[in-house]
């Protein structure tokens, strides 16, 4: 039996999103998620080598900006957190990588 809960995503301005994405941990989270349909919390923690608290705080910021969706489900009695990148998040991370590549070409 599994219950699913999706939190709503309040919108944010483009400058705020850009500032959020610029942080390299959040950039890592979005880049990893952009390669996948979804990932569990533990997977992101392992691939990006983050502590639970650190990852949680970054995810909360990304979620409140509407860049990711956090899905909380239960497998039996065990809670499982899955993360999915939103189209806005994908667009933001793609644009950020493009800007970095452009900057690299200039320098």
């Amino acid at each position: 039996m599994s219950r699913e809960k999706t939190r709503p995503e309040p919108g944010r301005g483009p400058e705020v999103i850009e500032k959020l994405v610029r942080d390299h941990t959040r950039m890592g989270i979005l880049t990893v998620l952009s390669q996948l349909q979804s990932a569990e919390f533990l997977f992101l923690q392992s691939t990006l080598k983050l502590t639970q608290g650190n990852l949680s705080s970054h995810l909360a910021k990304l979620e409140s900006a509407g860049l990711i969706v956090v899905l909380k489900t239960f497998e039996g009695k065990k809670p499982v957190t899955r993360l999915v990148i939103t189209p806005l998040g994908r667009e933001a991370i793609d644009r950020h990588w493009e800007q970095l590549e452009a900057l690299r070409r200039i320098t």
Partner: protein
Amino acid sequence: MTDEFDQNLAAIRRAADVAADYKGLQGLFNVGLGVGLLFTAVPGYNGIGALFMIVITVAGHTYYVKKYGRATPQPRRNRTVIIVWFLGALLVWGGLGLDASGAAPIALGALVAAVALIGFDLVAYRHVGVTALHWALIVILALAALAPALGWLSIGLWNYSLGSIAIVLVIQGLVDHWRLTRAMEPTR
């Protein structure tokens, strides 16, 4: 851009590459398949082979889920990997059939498996890359497939093909498992 900044970007790219190829890097699946095939290649051990295959594969799946969590690939990528794997398995099955009938003096099953592995490796490790060891294993398997033409083979071609494929799968699986655990290792 500073060196530290570049290093951070490289680390992010590496993490994303591992995430994209996560399924392919779960080497214990190939180890299970290889051990199972190895037993199947030995006459009278078919049942044990299937049992080993199931036990190791299930244990591998549980290990990866508990240790690193689940990641669902993009549907399109998933489809491509499944199609390539299925076509490869079908070709190898055909090759093994020809080995059983003794249609050629070489191990056709192993030869076809070497070709199928090229396709599979290029798809499964599209982001993390095919290592020199993976290429070496393919070459060794192809050469092993030609070896029966020298005439020294004392077992059936079918068993020889299956055994060669199995050994390559076990080694490849162990290498992939090592790559994944190394990539996921916490920083000290």
